[in-house]
């Protein structure tokens, strides 16, 4: 391995010192417009077998410890926030199918999404509002953030585990409206007679409306 040249050293120092991941453009701007592409490739290579790696997450670059050393470095006090099952599912749905509306998320999960669930994901910095869908009601749609990619060690969403297989199986196709309505299609009139509780209700039902309510 030859000694790194000045540009390589400068890029190395800049990325190393930065408190935030930086895009190639940001690095270049910091280095007075130097071309940093080759240097980044060279550095990624230099560090490939070391205890720290230069990684690209989305468009941004940063150094992080090699994943195989996790068992040595894991620290209790830095435990990542534990997400509820609902939140992890919602996150996965947004990640694999972005951008999606709340109604679409609910159609897939078959239940309403508690107000706080999306808030938790947005507070973690993994999910953002990505505009509105241009359909009646103009629902807000959600997508993942660069922080999401960084946190889960993904260069792009294409690296999401199993995404190709899911797509090939048609499981990532847009959620059709009929699916949202499915559970309701035959039930509206039957519901009355079936709903008669066989027992005295001791506590109010949890009030979760049927699937169709997700619209």
């Amino acid at each position: 391995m030859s000694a790194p040249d000045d540009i390589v050293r400068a890029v190395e120092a800049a990325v190393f010192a930065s408190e935030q991941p930086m895009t190639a453009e940001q690095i270049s701007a910091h280095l007075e417009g130097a071309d940093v592409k080759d240097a980044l490739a060279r550095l990624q290579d230099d560090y490939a077998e070391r205890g720290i790696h230069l990684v690209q997450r989305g468009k941004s670059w940063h150094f992080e410890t090699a994943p195989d050393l996790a068992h040595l470095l894991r620290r209790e006090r830095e435990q990542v926030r534990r997400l509820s099952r609902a939140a992890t599912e919602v996150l996965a749905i947004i990640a694999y199918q972005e951008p999606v509306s709340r109604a679409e998320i609910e159609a897939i999960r078959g239940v309403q999404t508690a107000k706080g669930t999306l808030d938790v994901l947005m507070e973690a910095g993994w999910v953002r509002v990505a505009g509105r869908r241009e359909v009646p009601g103009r629902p807000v749609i959600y997508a993942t953030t660069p922080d999401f990619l960084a946190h889960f060690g993904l260069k792009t969403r294409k690296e999401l585990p199993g995404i190709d297989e899911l797509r090939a199986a048609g499981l990532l196709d847009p959620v059709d409206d009929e699916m949202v309505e499915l559970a309701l299609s035959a039930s509206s009139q039957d519901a009355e007679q079936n709903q008669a509780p066989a027992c005295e209700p001791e506590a109010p039902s949890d009030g979760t409306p049927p699937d169709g309510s997700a619209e």
Partner: protein
Amino acid sequence: MSTDLLAGASEGSAFEAWDGPAAAAGDDAALYLEIDGWEGPLDLLLDLARRQKVDLRQISILELVDQYLTYVEQAEKMCLELAADYLVMAAWLAYLKSALLLPREEQEDPGPEELALRLQMRLQRLGAMRESAARLMGRDRLGRDVFARGAPEGLRIDRKNAWKCEWYDLVKAYGDVKQRADPVVHIVHERMVMTLDSALSRVSSMLGVTLDWMELRDFLPSSHEGDWADPRLRRSALASSFVAALELARIGKAEIAQEEIFGPLRLKALKS
């Protein structure tokens, strides 16, 4: 596909295939807790489908429907309170089952096979997302498995101002300041006037030597005498003489007459 779905119906009894929540039957609380653990009927359906221990694409929908309906029945028998959406799903599944078993001709569109297929797709999709969520959470995560630099120095760009000012602006600014600062000079020119006193003595002495009417202008000094050519001084003299005439009329020493508005003002001494 539809034959597969229907074929599945013959496989074993629904109850045996199901060692799930209801297996804990007899203990109402246990079952209730299980219901609590499901996030809605779709979740329950997916759980039941998984218990068939086949690929979700291979599940028997009829079997699944039976299992679900059995479950709901049991829950009702045990006087458990089921959320409305579980019952709605039960009704719909009952409808689906009967449609699947009906002769083909009487069926509407979308046909029951199509509906069954969609339900199966839904379960697959939920299953896939659930699995993906688990795989995602199991990745090497920043801050848990891999770590960014603990104490980065931080990059900073300090903006420095390069001030610019032109020679012209500087010099002009000074000019402006001086202009503003120049003391404002108020000069009152010494103006030549005929005072009221001198007009009074002049008019009263002239009235003493004439008995006839005299025009006010004739009391003014001749414009040939010294400064009296100055029109400003003449205006002053006229004004003062007029006031003097009014004063003389007031104390009864003179009489004033004017034939028309703006006409000549005439003056005559009053014999006392």
